[in-house]
């Protein structure tokens, strides 16, 4: 059975990148530490092996000298020789385990040469009943030269802090540390990327909270908070409530899609005019609020005239022209002692009155003829839900 391919989105990649990076850092750390430890142990073991061999060489050379001077017996020299012989395979094996040591210097080669030289004396020292002193002397002086060579190599290329061996071990450790550092840098960059993404998302969310998704005007929540804060600051402003006339009828007749187009069209008109002079928010299906920065009715009416002028252009839906009509109720915040609830109730009443009397201009709340008490404000006079004939709304082109 064929399984559907897993589609990994960008989000999934950035989600798994974090744990993978952390894992890589952990591995790189472990690698660095083990490398460092291994190098140190290896260095110790290599040094120890060479020092031991050097000591054995010295001992054997000393015993050869002692034998030539008749101070020791053949047996002791033979034992000393055998002990020296036994050291070589161990030392060479040890050095072959040290990759860095193998890379540099001819130490390993030199070791092999010295071992060959030691082996060459096997017949002379072990097999013959009498060890020829002049032969032994020649062999020992050559061995002494070789021992010096080993010492020299050791002192120049391995032990000092500026030697090739130290440089190579250090560079190996640094190489590992650099990898670790790079991974950590990548991780930090990744965290930065995450932070930027989160900030972007946050600002997008904040924008969405403050705006109405359909019309792009301010949201109900934002508008109400803006009114509250303006009232709190006792900032002079006028509040206007708008309602699109016969919107429900358009919805019923042409469908919701047409209704949406109508609202977008209206929102554009708001944005072009009234938004310049304050804040316009969509607070309900076809209800809008304008927080006007001015509290002078004359100025507000001038600004509103600009809006009405724009509204003369019909909205064209499916090649049909629809003319929009707005009812507006207005009030001045200072008149209500910056009390938002009362102000909102009053302008609502004014707007409904404008609607019922089919007034096209702004209807100010102090013009309300039969003030409806706030207690009854909930039983707003509703527009008769009559179905509008198309002729009321449209003119066919």
């Amino acid at each position, binding site marked *: 059975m064929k399984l559907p391919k897993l589609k990994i989105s960008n989000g999934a990649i950035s989600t798994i990148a974090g744990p993978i990076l952390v894992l890589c850092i952990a591995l790189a*750390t472990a690698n*660095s*530490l083990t490398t*460092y*430890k291994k190098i140190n142990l290896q260095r110790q073991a290599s040094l120890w092996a060479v020092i*031991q061999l050097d*000591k*054995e060489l010295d*001992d054997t050379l000393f015993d050869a000298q002692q034998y030539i001077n008749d101070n020791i017996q053949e*047996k002791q020299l033979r*034992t*000393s020789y*055998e*002990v020296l*012989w*036994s*050291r070589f*395979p161990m030392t060479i094996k040890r050095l072959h385990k040290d990759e860095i040591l193998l890379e540099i210097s001819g130490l390993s080669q030199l070791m092999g040469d010295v071992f060959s030289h030691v082996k060459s004396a096997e017949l002379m020292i072990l097999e013959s009943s009498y060890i020829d002193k002049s032969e032994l002397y020649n062999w020992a002086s050559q061995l002494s030269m070789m021992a010096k060579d080993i010492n020299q190599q050791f002192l120049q290329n391995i032990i000092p*802090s*500026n030697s090739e061996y*130290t440089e190579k071990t*250090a560079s190996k*450790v*640094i190489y590992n*540390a650099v990898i670790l550092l790079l991974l950590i840098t990548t991780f930090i960059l990744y965290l930065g990327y995450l932070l930027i993404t989160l900030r972007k998302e946050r600002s997008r969310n904040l924008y969405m909270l403050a705006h109405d998704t359909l019309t792009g005007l301010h949201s109900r929540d934002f508008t109400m908070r803006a009114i509250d804060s303006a009232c709190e600051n006792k900032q002079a402003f006028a509040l206007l409530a708008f309602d699109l006339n016969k919107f429900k009828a358009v919805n019923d007749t042409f469908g919701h899609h047409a209704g949406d187009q109508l609202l977008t069209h209206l929102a554009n008109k708001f944005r072009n005019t009234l938004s310049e002079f304050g804040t316009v928010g969509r607070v309900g299906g076809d209800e809008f609020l304008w927080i006007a920065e001015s509290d002078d009715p004359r100025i507000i009416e001038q600004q509103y005239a600009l809006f009405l002028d724009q509204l003369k252009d019909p909205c064209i839906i499916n090649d049909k022209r629809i003319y929009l009509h707005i009812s507006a109720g207005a009030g001045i915040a200072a008149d209500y002692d910056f009390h938002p609830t009362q102000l909102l109730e009053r302008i609502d009443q004014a707007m409904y009155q404008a609607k019922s009397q089919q007034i096209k201009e702004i209807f100010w709340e102090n013009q309300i003829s039969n003030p409806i008490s706030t207690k009854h404000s909930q039983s707003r006079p509703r527009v008769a839900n009559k179905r509008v004939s198309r002729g009321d709304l449209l003119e066919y082109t």
Partner: protein
Amino acid sequence: MNNKKKLINIALGAVVAVVALSSLGGKYFLSTSKDKAISTTSRLSDAKPTNLKEDTLLSIQAVKNSGCNKSTELNDKALLALPQKQFVTHHSWSENAESFSGPLLEDVLDTTCGNTEKIKLTALNDYAIDMDFSQIKKYQPIVALSVNGKRLSIREKGPLWIMLPLDDHKDIAEKSMDGMMIWQLSNIKILKTEDETS
């Protein structure tokens, strides 16, 4: 450049120390504390025993104030005359398990002094270690004369090699006893016996 290296070494060293303490460390520290039974001494402090008999393989001397005042020289024959023990074990110098045989170290020491507590073992090349025998005794170390049925030569870490039946004692941490399993053994000094303390 050197200073940089030093700094890196110090920094890495610190990190290694922290990690060693937390994770890898446990094992490491355990093994070092166990190693107290053995300590390596300078090779120069002991002169080679001279005037050995021609066929002596192992010489044992009790030092002054050890509670015993004897010395013995054991040759091939004397060592083979002691009860022989044989076992197969893995060890650090070979990849495969090998069969070792020879007398118990305890029996070898008993030829000179009984109830030995502390000894110094010296190899042909003057490498020497001090051993707390009272602690090691329970593992029954032997003085191996043969490996895989073949007599040990000097070239094969012989003629005498202290060997422990490591495979029989799983409680011994790996390589923790390596320092004690001295090869090319040639001399034992008895430093302390129980007789002295009692």
